[in-house]
């Protein structure tokens, strides 16, 4: 480890990464150190077992889904770029961003945060949260604490309220609509220190 500049130079394509994600150089250095700390065997990339070593994550009822969100379909390795890109979802929303239709939305926009949360529910990635998928999440979050009937009734009620086009599943738009009033920025953002 060395000063900010020398660590930054060790990260390939760091300029593009910073522009894409909006992290500052200081953030990049700290995230790089964290990446290396998680990569105990110094492979240069992370695998799902490295995440398994984080105790607080193992305690989290949806811990394995979160880990799954980092590894895109079928991949077993996660390089630093992808690691940072996913974490960028959790940067607080930039309030003064001009709404320019030609510029693609930043990773941490409200819409992209919602998409990230949506994929935690939608494990088979068909663009809809089916009743079965909803039940799976409920089971993960509640397991032994409620009966199967209670789980099913909660699932049914939720779908009833959110499903507007009556297809027994919740699409991304219906998801977004049902969360209109929730302050997504606050709930899906992590305050990165200087």
């Amino acid at each position: 480890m060395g000063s900010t500049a020398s660590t930054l130079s060790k990260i390939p394509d760091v300029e593009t990464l910073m522009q894409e994600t909006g992290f500052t150089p200081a953030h990049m250095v700290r995230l790089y150190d964290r990446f290396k700390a998680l990569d105990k065997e110094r492979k240069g990339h992370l695998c799902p077992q490295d995440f398994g070593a984080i105790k607080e994550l193992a305690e989290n009822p949806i811990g394995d889904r979160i880990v799954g969100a980092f590894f895109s379909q079928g991949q077993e390795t996660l390089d630093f770029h992808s690691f940072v890109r996913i974490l960028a979802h959790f940067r607080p929303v930039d309030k003064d961003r001009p709404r320019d239709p030609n510029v693609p939305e930043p990773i941490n926009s409200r819409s992209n945060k919602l998409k990230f949360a949506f994929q935690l529910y939608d494990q088979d990635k068909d663009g809809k949260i089916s009743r079965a998928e909803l039940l799976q999440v409920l089971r993960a979050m509640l397991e032994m604490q409620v009966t199967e009937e209670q789980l099913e009734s909660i699932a049914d009620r939720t779908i009833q309220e959110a499903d507007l086009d009556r297809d027994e599943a919740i699409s991304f738009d219906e998801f977004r609509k049902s969360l209109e009033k929730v302050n997504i920025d606050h709930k899906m953002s992590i305050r990165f220190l200087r």
Partner: protein
Amino acid sequence: MDSYLFPFDNLLCMLLGISFTVWITLLLVFIIVPAIFGLSFGIRRLYMKTLLKIFEWATLRMERGAREKNQHLYKPYSNGIIAKEPASLEQEIQEMRRSGQGGEPEFDMSDIFYFCRRGVESIVDDEVTKRFTAEELESWNLLTRSNYNFNHVSARLTVLWGLGVLIRYGLLLPLRVTLAFTGVGLLVVLTSIIGLLPNGRMKNLLSQKAHLMCYRICVRALTAIITYHDSENKPKNGGICVANHTSPIDVIILASDGCYAMVGQVHGGLMGVIQRSMVKACPHIWFERSEVKDRHLVAKRLSDHVADQTKLPILIFPEGTCINNTSVMMFKKGSFEIGCTVYPVAIKYDPRFGDAFWNSSKFGMVNYLLHMMSSWAIVCSVWYLPPMRREEDEDAVQFANRVKAAIARKGGLVDLLWDGGLKREKVKDVFKEEQQRLYSKVLVGGGSEDRSRS
């Protein structure tokens, strides 16, 4: 030709002989004799003050060098990368609900946000991993192993550092190794001799003196500068002394100020020799490897020892493993079930002079001892806390937590719920269930049956 060499030979021999004698005399007068009587010349404290001044100077120069190059000194994160919300699960979810529909609590799609965010926060920065790496310093103590700002070390600093290396490896290390051998050797020899005496007051007295003397020599072998606080609370016979664990040196630090009965597994080799001779002079508790698994046997031996008022207090480290001295982890409840007085002790090391934490997954024992003996010094503070007993309505786990909290508070360490064994094992499902239970309470409400965890 031969005649030329003889005088040189003689001269060389004489010189070697003289320097050896001087060396041993200095050693005896300044270190071993005070150790026997428990006195101190104050040389070590003077040394400590001088070192501190040099370290401050070194750090200032590094900061100056960094400012000239218009860069920032990399201050390793002592406060974490992110600011975590201290709000609990219930608070957060209620808040989220209030912004959505009001009314009765029921599942909402947004509930997942809480778990998601908490999960990602722990990916970026988690409490436990932080505790198992060596603590990171704000100023540089001229040891390469704790320097993160190599580019800013100027020429003058490099010279100073080089001088430091010479002193540490050329002067201090041989001195310390000699002392260590003397201390351990004396321990084995003296305790074996004392073991020949018949049991009685004389034997106990002599064995205590012998143990104290040898541990004090070992303390000087590490150049450990220890400050003992509240000595009126020192552990007494028939009790158990518990302390937080950072390194194997903890034993030497505590045992040089009071006499304890040690507990441990029987080892082979040098350790085994030391253990066998120690137990001849006074009753320590050494377990065979097979006996360790049998918890009842262990508990019985401990309680038998404690019931005998003539035997010394037992020294136990309930965390079960070495922690990096910034926090106290979960205490194993075994020693708290015995039902006698517990004397808690808090040990806090000052990391500026040398990091005493033993990262057993990174370094072996020999490597670790080499590190210890080539640091500047080991500076630590020991606080003896007032004795505690288990209350009527407490179980062993609650008592253990109470003791742990007291130790953490006194030593200025963070009190963590986590089990030190997590260093090696996976998280037990108990913790996940706790989260699920909390969430279900929010959802289903207090009216429904409260499923109690076994």
